[in-house]
């Protein structure tokens, strides 16, 4: 990836973060921490990796995306808005009565959402079903799903992982947003799912561990995943929860809390500083 391309993606990711903060602030509730940690992953998937068309969100040969950690909907929504599925203005109505954007993804109401999620662990199974359908119909679309590192404490994730490997779903790519924090504390303290890479490997996945904020590493990982045959892929993306908002970074408290007016201003200043820096490059 050349410098200009990378700069482009970094700017988009920054706008995803701004959109997510905007949404959570206006809703006075929601999940900023994980939306910010996964922002670079969302950006790469929607702007570089996936074969999709915002003008035809239901096209049957499109790649699919399932946000298994559905609470990070603000990050996904901001990405979809930037990609052109709906106007960014919708972010201001997030979680409001009658709004298109529900607190957790609702495939019935939001263009570009391929699966309704929110109950942790369930999205991975649905992604497996989509991948199995692709195999059954001899289609070449791919299925991507982002899950949380805390989320993988749910047993269903491992039922799904076993299923994916057993059925050789090499059109499935799981991405673990490995930010190390969950609601009650650090993932290491609360549920202890580490070592995540070894677990997926032992379940029959091709596993890569990357820096989830480095677009060169993200690109290389997705390129490699596409070459894997006969087994599913897992990309363990090391990330920072609350990334690029000074007071949110690595703070457990920012899993599911909305910023107040003052905090919102600070967050936007932080992100604007990042954006200006990128624009000056």
């Amino acid at each position, binding site marked *: 990836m050349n410098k200009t391309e990378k700069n482009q993606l970094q700017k988009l990711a920054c706008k995803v973060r701004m959109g997510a903060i905007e949404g959570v602030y206006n809703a006075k509730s929601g999940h900023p921490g994980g939306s910010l940690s996964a922002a670079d992953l969302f950006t790469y998937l929607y702007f570089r990796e996936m074969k999709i068309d915002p003008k035809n969100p239901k096209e*049957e040969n499109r790649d*699919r995306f*399932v946000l298994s950690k559905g609470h990070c909907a603000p990050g996904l929504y901001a990405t979809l808005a930037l990609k052109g599925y709906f106007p960014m203005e919708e972010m201001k109505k997030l979680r409001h009565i009658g709004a298109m954007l529900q607190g957790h993804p*609702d*495939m*019935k109401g939001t263009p570009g959402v*391929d*699966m*309704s999620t*929110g*109950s942790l*662990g*369930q*999205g*991975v*199974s*649905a*992604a*497996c*079903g*989509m*991948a*199995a*359908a*692709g195999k*059954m*119909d001899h289609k070449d679309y791919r299925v991507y799903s982002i899950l949380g590192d805390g989320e993988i404490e749910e*047993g*269903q994730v491992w*039922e*799904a992982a*076993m*299923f994916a490997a*057993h*059925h050789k779903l090499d059109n499935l790519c799981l991405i673990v947003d490995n930010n190390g924090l969950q609601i009650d504390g650090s993932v290491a303290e609360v549920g202890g799912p580490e070592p995540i890479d070894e677990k997926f490997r032992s379940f029959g996945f091709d596993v890569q561990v990357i820096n989830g904020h480095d677009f060169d590493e993200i690109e290389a990982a997705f390129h490699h995943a596409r070459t894997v045959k006969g087994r599913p892929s897992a990309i363990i993306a090391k990330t920072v929860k609350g990334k690029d908002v000074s007071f949110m970074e690595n703070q457990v408290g920012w899993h599911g809390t909305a910023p107040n007016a003052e905090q919102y201003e600070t967050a936007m200043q932080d992100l604007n500083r990042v954006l200006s820096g990128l624009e000056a490059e």
Partner: protein
Amino acid sequence: MAEMVKKATRESYGEALAELSEKYPQVVVLDADLAAATKTGVFKKACPDRFIDCGISECNMVGVAAGLATCGKIPFATSFAMFSAGRAFEQVRNSVGYPKLNVKIVGSHAGISVGEDGATHQCNEDIALMRTIPGMVVLNPADHYEMKAAVKAAIEHHGPVYLRLGRLAVESFNNADDYRFELGKGVTLRDGRNITIVATGLMVSRALKAVKTLEEQGIDARLINIHTIKPLDRELIIKAAKETGKIITVEEHNVIGGLGDAVCGAVCEAFPVPVIKVGVNDVYGHSGPAVDLLDEFGLNAGHIVEVTKKAITKQSL
């Protein structure tokens, strides 16, 4: 006219899937390591490419079915009722019901008539669980021909459906392959003026016997077969309440949350009459031969006759 058959509805389910497989190429059948018992094995043999054994992981199976449905498939996610409706309840609610996906959840070995496996496998709660999911159609066919028709109706209905199957062989009272099955419509099997018995599933043939006995004793009971518990045929039930007064409901399910409560809900709003519920009285079952258990829990013609006579003679209940 076809032959009178005595067959478990799970067998009719497997047969129907295999027979309809060619006409409906979108149908995909999933099981969780119980294909021999749920009879999805019959479909597997006919269409191995459209059968997925998910292994012993019912929650994942329901999610996989949801994913398949988003890609245009019509999945039948099958296991024992205790596991497909029970264990995977939240998956059914959130991954199938909420996005209104075209998934058929199938619960085999429902009710006390699983028999010897005992309380852990005797699911008397599935109808209650599935009824509470918005938009979920709940089907509980009574015999071989009705089950075959119900499978076809489930395929043709776009949206989530729960289909209840039984383990025990039941005598068919319908007798034709072209049996007319209309989703959401009850079937009046006997007209009568004194009282109405509303039965579902396995209990319909038993209620039919009860009605014949009552007739011999001069009691003119109406019998309604409710194969679709949701949406309930309110019109037919309310008409019966108006014309016959008291209603007796009969089901192989907990008296809480099942057919009885559905009927109560309909009549209490529109035309309140006494409803007496015959079913499993909020207790767990235990191991034993299926038929003996049905007798023990009062799920037989004799008990229905007894309850009906008591209801008729008593002015207030």
